[in-house]
């Protein structure tokens, strides 16, 4: 099982950052790689079990299911149902923790998945650096550091 761990710090209070990232249908509003997104069957985006169907800017289509969402602990867990990435059993969690020293936010994004062994290094790098750090960099730009 491959594991990805990416973490960063953004100069904004956790409640503000969480308000942006908690929307399971809101990736296009803050993640530069995501083009458009919708929730299947017209369900609310914070209904655990709902499925988002979104497209990357490169045209790839991905379907992901919301497995857990907590406004109290500020985390969101989801799995990939369908993607062209060649991953199985993919589960990811985005978690925010307040940094009391300076009203900043510690952001963690983790994933575990199975894949063909020869593709593991490339996938770990693409997901960790491209998707996760790419998202963190965008949040840092949006919140001014």
């Amino acid at each position, binding site marked *: 099982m491959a594991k990805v*761990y990416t973490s960063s710090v953004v100069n904004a209070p956790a409640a503000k950052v969480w308000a942006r990232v908690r929307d399971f249908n809101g990736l296009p509003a803050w993640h530069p790689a995501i083009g458009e997104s919708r929730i299947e069957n017209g369900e609310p985006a914070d209904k655990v079990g709902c499925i988002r169907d979104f497209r990357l800017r490169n045209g790839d289509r991905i379907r992901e299911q919301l497995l857990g969402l907590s406004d109290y602990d500020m985390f969101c867990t989801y799995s990939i149902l369908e993607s062209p990435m060649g991953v199985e059993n993919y589960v990811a969690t985005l978690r925010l923790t307040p*940094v*009391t020293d300076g009203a900043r936010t510690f952001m963690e994004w983790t994933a575990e998945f199975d894949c063909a062994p020869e593709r593991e290094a490339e996938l770990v790098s693409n997901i960790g650096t491209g998707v996760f750090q790419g998202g963190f960099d965008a949040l840092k730009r949006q919140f001014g550091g």
Partner: protein
Amino acid sequence: MARVVKSTIIDAPVDRVWAILRDFNGFDRWLPPIKASAIERHLPADLIGCVRRVQLQDGAEVREQLLGLSDLEMTFSYCLLDTPIPLFNYVAHVRLLPVTDGNRTFWHWEARFTAPASAEADMTHLVAELIFQAGFESMRNNCKALAA
């Protein structure tokens, strides 16, 4: 029951901060209020259940017991056994996490305790500012000095 939660970012790799923090007998090297530290019965400082006897700068003595330590999770927990101040049922947890963006360290330090109602605000200030926040600042300086 009062609860104090403090966290900070240290501009040093997590392994370096953990190497300093995990030494239950080494707080006198970085935590300003602590003058001297010794483990009772000469037990190893990473033996779960060991008790450290700590002398504060003002001469007071505190006994604390190591409840748990994990090098994998980079966490440890300890409780106060004896203290001259009205701080009861005190349990503290330390946790480090790597900040991969910049090879830094996220440090989370929290404590729960009870205190008489008249002393709770003072005890909360003591733990939050004079121990936890002061510890953050001196560890930050410590790591800067090591890097220089």
